[in-house]
């Protein structure tokens, strides 16, 4: 079953830079794919279009049957509630505890306290960091903070998890731990799209790799490894 279909997408920023050019791509349900490419190649722009932070100038982006490119601004929240998004800089709220940061994402849904508690604890149980629910983000290591961010991203049980360089700020050992967490989530059925330029991670994971350069798909490697001629 196809979850995402990107077709002939072109994205030109107001500055005149064309970040993504005539890009087409299909992602099946349950897949784990990497998007790789050198810095400035358009990975983040592609991810941003998938969660409709940016809107393509041309082409369509169908996610679960909906053309996200046509989604009106005031309806974007409906898409976001069905996704999880993870960033390089974690984007945690420093005034909130780990528990509150994760619960934050489902409080807006109007669930009752018990449901919020159950879902939040379940996500923290799955992702970690263990036993740190009452800590504040500043008291955690980078890897632990990223776990909190991942827990927040999956607490609403999304079908699709988007990750933009989630290991970008982490050492290789911690990166690998985070990859194990993501793989675990993927095994439970969540489709994952991860933009990265971390070769080590890509090479070890042996997933489908889509390499983009200058906004275009350069190569697709099934069970691929990082092609590092250009990197």
């Amino acid at each position, binding site marked *: 079953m196809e979850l995402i279909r990107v077709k002939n997408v072109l994205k030109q920023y107001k500055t005149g830079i064309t970040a993504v050019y005539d890009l087409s791509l299909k992602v099946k349900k349950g897949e784990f794919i990497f998007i790789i490419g050198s810095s400035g190649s358009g990975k983040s722009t592609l991810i941003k279009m998938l*969660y409709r932070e940016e809107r393509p100038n041309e082409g369509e982006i169908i996610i679960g049957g909906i053309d996200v490119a046509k989604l009106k601004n005031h309806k974007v*929240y409906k898409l976001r*509630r069905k996704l999880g998004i993870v960033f390089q800089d974690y*984007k945690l*709220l420093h*005034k909130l505890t780990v528990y509150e940061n994760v619960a*934050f994402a489902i409080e807006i849904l109007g669930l*009752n306290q018990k449901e919020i508690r159950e879902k939040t604890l379940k996500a923290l149980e799955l992702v970690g960091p263990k036993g740190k629910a009452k800590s504040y983000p500043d008291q955690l290591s980078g890897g632990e903070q990223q776990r909190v961010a991942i827990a927040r991203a999956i607490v*609403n049980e999304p079908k699709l998890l988007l990750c933009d360089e989630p290991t970008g700020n982490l050492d290789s050992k911690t990166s690998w731990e985070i990859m194990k967490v993501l793989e675990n989530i993927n095994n439970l059925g969540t489709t994952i799209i991860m933009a990265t330029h971390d070769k080590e991670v890509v090479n070890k994971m042996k997933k489908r790799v889509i390499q983009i350069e200058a906004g275009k798909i350069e190569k697709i490697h099934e069970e691929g490894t990082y092609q590092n001629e250009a990197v």
Partner: protein
Amino acid sequence: MKPFRILYRNIRDALKSIFRNFSLSIASISCITITLIIVAISMILSFNVENVTNLIRKDFTIIAFLDNKLTEEEIKQVEEKITKLDNIDEYKYENKIEIAESMQDSSDVFKTIMENWDEEDNPLQDTFLIKVVDAENINITANELKKIEGITVVRYGEGIVENLLSVFGIVEKSLIVIVLALIVVTAFLISNTIKLTIFSRKREIEIMRLVGASNLNIKLPFIIEGLFLGVLGSLIPIILVIYGYRALFKYFEGQVFTPFLQLVQPLPFVYIVSSLLALIGVFVGMWGSARAVKKYLKI
């Protein structure tokens, strides 16, 4: 249940946020407080001016003196003509004997002088005391009265009434303009102050949007926060009005220098003013917040 839960959460978050951004909250609250105090003073002045104006309007009397040679029949005719004029509220006939008696009652000096007058000596004139509906057009009515045959002189404090009323009118209108201007200025001030708190919460809003908060989800806590700021900001002005105006009323014993300038009775007046202040405070706070947060929404 769902909307209530969301509302509850928003109220909780709004209160938390007021305490977290304490200094900015205090700034907004003081802003509202100062404005509302000025608004309260203007309102009290304005209501009192209105009150005095109405009293003057009601009380102001035209005195029409009659020719002493008129027969009773002719006086009847004059009366009939008076009733036919517009703008007549009520009128009263007093003959010169009654006037002399009431003057004697009012002062011993008059009494000794007037006691010995007989009917022929009495230099006073029979009069009609006339109250008008619309005091502002009192001069028109006075002119019409003058034209009636048998009325010799018409007195109504020419000019004074109209001038007084027009001054009061100007005072009242200026107060209304001041109040409205203040409300608008404060709304913008609040909006800008809250913008500062929102600026520090830009990240929070960004993350809210990322995890799927709708515009309403984002706006609601800020609007509720504005509501609380408005309520808190109106507390001191309300207390000042309730106790201050009562004390003032007591001090002046209900009138300023002359019975002519009656103060409005404190009850229920202070509660009406207080409710208006609370309403203005809440409106200003909510509007200010809604405006401040708008920039951060993607609509």
